[in-house]
């Protein structure tokens, strides 16, 4: 990677850094972990910059690295969830009473299984199509449709109707 490519890389990263951090935060809901994920993503991007800049969509390439970095982190043995005798939080129990409770939406998101959460973030925050989401996650389009439907159902149960009016 020469100086010109370094400059190109720097310019690209600086223009996308905030967005990447926000996507990472929605996935993991922890700023430290989000910064870890962004750091891993940017390192991999730099090492593969020659190949990445030739990609059809550089943004899609970076989102794929970030999402896989997060899913990979979640699979580590020490990241596995605790065995507990308490039932998991039920999304429907979280109340959503208006604009002041928007943080609840992130809490609801956290309650979704990781793949479902990734689908919801990619489909409805990154605005990816079903096909693009399926390609990025390496699953079928049917899986993306069912995962996003289930995810939305959980969110819908706790949020005002007008939020989902456009989706109906």
């Amino acid at each position, binding site marked *: 990677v020469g100086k010109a490519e370094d400059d190109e890389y720097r310019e690209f990263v600086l223009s996308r850094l905030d967005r990447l951090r926000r996507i990472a935060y929605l996935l993991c809901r922890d700023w430290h972990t989000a910064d870890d994920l962004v750091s891993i993503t940017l390192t991999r991007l730099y090492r593969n910059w020659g190949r990445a800049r030739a990609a059809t969509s550089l943004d899609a390439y970076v989102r794929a690295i970030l999402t896989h970095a997060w899913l990979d982190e979640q699979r580590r043995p020490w990241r596995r969830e605790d*065995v507990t005798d308490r039932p998991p939080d039920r999304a429907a129990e979280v109340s959503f009473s208006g604009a002041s409770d928007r*943080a609840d939406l992130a809490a609801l998101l956290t309650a979704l299984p990781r793949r479902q959460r990734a689908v919801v973030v990619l489909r409805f925050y990154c605005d990816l199509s079903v096909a693009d989401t399926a390609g990025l996650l390496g699953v079928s389009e049917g899986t993306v449709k069912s995962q996003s439907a289930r995810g939305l159902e959980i969110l819908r149960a706790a949020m005002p109707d007008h939020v989902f009016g456009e989706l109906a």
Partner: protein
Amino acid sequence: MKMLQALLDESIVDPMPPFTSVDRLIARERRRRRRHRAGIACGAAAAVLAVVGAVAFFGTPKPGAPRLTVEPATGSTAQTATPSPSDVFVPPSHGPETDAETAARLDAALRARVSTVVPGAGLDPAIVPFVDVGLVTYQGYLTFSGKGALSLPSGGDSGIEVYALRPTPGTTRTDPPGIKSYPGILERVFGGCAGAFTLNANGTPVPQPNPTDGSCTERGGPSGTRLTLVQQRYGRQVANTVVAVFPDGSAVTTTMTNDSPTAPAATALPLLSLDQLAAIIADPSLIP
């Protein structure tokens, strides 16, 4: 959908100032590449000198001489060479080091061990020193770790993580933000099979797994190491974990999975067997 997108955006509260510095990242990667190139050149030169010297001193090796070999993984295309760890534990000797110097030394040592046990194997993306990508820390131990994917010349790659621990009695270490420490995590390193299966990452007792979920064996290894070899299954994911505890209380542990960031569950088993992983990490050169 736009409404949901806006709500998700607004739900992101109190963003922390980013500590990811792009310029620092570029500088670090440039240093890493220079070290890597220098390491390859020095390694090749040292190997040539060593072979020339050995042949000159001992003469040509006799055919049929005993060689230490390691069985390749079942269903794997990995080729195994002839590691030559010492049977006597010799603690590594080196002067005072900064964290970066230790990380560089461990990175080079790990690459050398991988090259010895699995010739032609690559670490891509390269193992990143602990100080740059924090995962888990072990209180009371100087901890370094790295993660990446190991690839074989014949194709395929597997995710790999390595942790290297050296006890530091009477000292404390300030870890960078984001580094996590779990009570009980040391049991997973030093507790043998019991620690591997009866505690989770937070030190909470968990039920014994169904036998089909995995296996664990303990045995002695080279250099006086005590080895714990664990294979566990989590759905389609299979994780091979090996822990090597050295006579001085240091430890090196590695986990390899049958998937990687670019290839989820691409193979039935991790590319390297438990024996191959043990041959890589049971070496004092990997002690911080």
